């Protein structure tokens, strides 16, 4: 396990449309004073223009004209914030089912999901879908803001009903921690400042929960070290080095490394980092490697240490499907995995997930926003780890060969709950 930056937490907002995700992020940013005066003023002006009160907090991240006119989030907004305790990268995701692909984009790099739901309405189907996707993407920690508690008259029974629902789903999806916080994003209770309306609640505010959440879990891995080769650099004097970004674990000079899928062993002679030579290359660093032996290594090959990845051209995967056109057995697409792109064919559809019951049922096709279990065959072998062991070497995207649109997010293997 490596946790390169415990001072930086990446989190994504998750949940159904209109439950208050953007308003909560707006409240969080305003109350922690992350906004410049001119930005705050611009939000006030835009609010007045649309007759939505003095300060529509959702406008802090809903920056597109259509978003403000329609009062919804269409695509992810990335915001950067810092408190005295740590730095945050915030992905404020859309809740609307039509924009599930954008939610997946925002959640794919998150350490933590901040789930926002309307407390009186509980876990809607779309919230459950988002929770499933977050769980599949490898999010292990959820912070749940039971929002609009002011509308629910701060009724503890409403809060406890949410806690029950969350606990049930959380156990099923395998989240290792979940905390439910009664919140009014609109009024600011329990977001940054404690709320005095809920004297029955003794837990953390949203900010306290975010500051305490485990950071860096995105990059954590139980695989060996991996370097997918991006580029071959010609050195002065005729040598070659192999450039890429390290993931999974660390490489050390003098160590035996495997070139895959060739299956050739060699020794790591030298490591160059962005600031010069290194003895050790940690995950997240862009480096280039000098190897002891001559090899035919090139872009899309991988250097790896034990436990080794698998070179395969047939595998099982979990996919989130983003295209209006359904996926059927036999379909041909392009697959991008680490630095390799190769044609791929669907050789079987094992089933799709019912997000209501969390059961996988048989299916002939995978339709828009479905989570499907599929078997794939690639033209060239790819070098993979199970997604649960390594999020970089376990992930891929599927691409339409004609339009070049990204039509699916894929993960090698399947989660325990599937």
């Amino acid at each position, binding site marked *: 396990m490596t946790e390169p930056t415990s001072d930086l937490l990446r989190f994504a907002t998750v949940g159904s449309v209109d439950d208050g995700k953007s308003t909560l992020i707006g409240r969080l940013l305003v109350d922690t004073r992350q906004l410049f005066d001119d930005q705050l003023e611009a939000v006030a002006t835009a609010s007045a223009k649309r007759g939505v009160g003095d300060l529509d907090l959702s406008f802090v991240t809903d920056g597109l004209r259509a978003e403000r006119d329609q009062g919804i989030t269409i695509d992810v907004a990335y*915001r950067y914030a810092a408190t005295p305790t740590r730095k945050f990268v915030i992905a404020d995701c859309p809740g609307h089912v039509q924009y599930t692909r954008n939610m997946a984009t925002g959640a794919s790099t998150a350490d933590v999901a901040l789930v926002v739901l309307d407390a009186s309405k509980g876990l809607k189907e779309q919230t459950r879908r988002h929770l499933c996707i977050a769980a599949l993407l490898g999010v292990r920690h959820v912070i749940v803001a039971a929002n609009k508690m002011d509308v629910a008259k701060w009724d503890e029974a409403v809060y406890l009903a949410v806690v029950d629902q969350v606990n049930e789903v959380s156990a099923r999806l395998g989240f290792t921690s979940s905390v439910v916080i009664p919140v009014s994003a609109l009024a600011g209770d329990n977001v940054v400042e404690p709320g005095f309306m809920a004297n029955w609640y003794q837990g953390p505010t949203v900010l306290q929960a975010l500051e305490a959440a485990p950071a860096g879990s995105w990059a954590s891995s139980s695989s060996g070290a991996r370097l997918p080769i991006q580029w071959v650099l010609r050195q002065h004097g005729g040598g070659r080095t192999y450039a890429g970004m390290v993931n999974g674990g660390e490489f050390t000079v003098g160590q035996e490394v495997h070139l895959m899928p060739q299956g050739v062993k060699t020794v790591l002679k030298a490591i160059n980092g962005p600031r010069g030579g290194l003895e050790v290359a940690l995950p997240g660093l*862009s480096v280039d490697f000098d190897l002891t032996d001559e090899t035919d290594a090139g872009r899309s090959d991988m250097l790896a240490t034990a436990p080794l990845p698998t070179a395969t051209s047939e595998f099982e995967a979990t996919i989130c499907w983003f295209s209006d056109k359904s996926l059927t057995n036999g379909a041909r697409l392009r697959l991008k995995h680490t630095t390799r792109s190769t044609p791929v064919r669907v050789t079987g559809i094992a089933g799709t997930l019912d997000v209501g019951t969390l059961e996988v049922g048989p299916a002939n096709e995978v339709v828009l926003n479905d989570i499907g279990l599929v078997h794939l065959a690639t033209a060239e072998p790819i070098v993979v780890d199970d997604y649960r062991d390594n999020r970089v070497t376990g992930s891929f995207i599927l691409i339409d060969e004609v339009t070049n649109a990204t039509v699916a997010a894929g993960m090698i293997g399947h989660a325990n709950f599937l």
Partner: protein
Amino acid sequence: MTTSTHPQIDHLDLLESHAIFIIREVVAECERPVLLFSGGKDSAVLLHLAVKAFAPQKLPFPVMHVDTGHNFPEVLAYRDERVATLGLRLEVASVQEAIDQGRVPDPGPLGMRNQLQTRALLDGIEKHKFDAAFGGARRDEDKARAKERVLSFRGVFGGWDPKIQRPELWQLYQGKVNAGENLRAFPLSDWTELDVWNYIRRENVPLPSIYFAHERPVLKRDNMWLAVGEFIHPQHGEVVERHLVRFRTVGDASCTGAVRSGADTLDAIIAEISVTNVSERGATRADDRFSETAMEDRKREGYF
């Protein structure tokens, strides 16, 4: 080269490495990339990273300056110095040329030219058949930029459609385009203004002198200090004053404002922006003040 025995890496190391990763990925996937180089601090950092990504080889693609014709002389000198020192191939996409050839209307000697940059940029991309253009844009700059992907797909008209952005998951940057389409690639997407300055200090990235405090004649227009010179003259009773100023961003000389500041070192600049109450674009860009969605509207037309 020195060998570090301390494997600890910090936030700036990770931003740097991620940017280098993106640059290498785009160059590997695209046929004819180009780096948009304005001479501003963000493009200076971008160029620095691109050079690192391919060292010791020379940069395997050219740089392009979208030249509004309203330049600060210090910035042009800086551009030419960088090109010569690093042995770069420079293309210039000229707004003046577009005006002279009648491709865009002439806004007059005092008109702002930021809007016209878009046309010069698109013409430059088309002329050289570039399929990917690196830019130094950051998501913390503007609420529309906060929504844009690292690889921003642009159709044959070069415009951004925020409703149909490609999903961009994990670290899988997908750069395939069909003929006539192109990408804008923003390796500094996750950097903040402060990250950029801290990186400039750490790496000694050279910058144009106007980023540092200096005394010059300025006048106040629309609540902003503009540098009096070839493109800005006093009108209707505007008063020319001499002040100690510096520029927080570098753009078209007719619409980029200066800030009153005595910060003449990187340490002083970093101290100053650490406590500022005003955003970078709010302080210095006249062109963003006209409408709520100025940046989004320009991007839809094909802007950076």
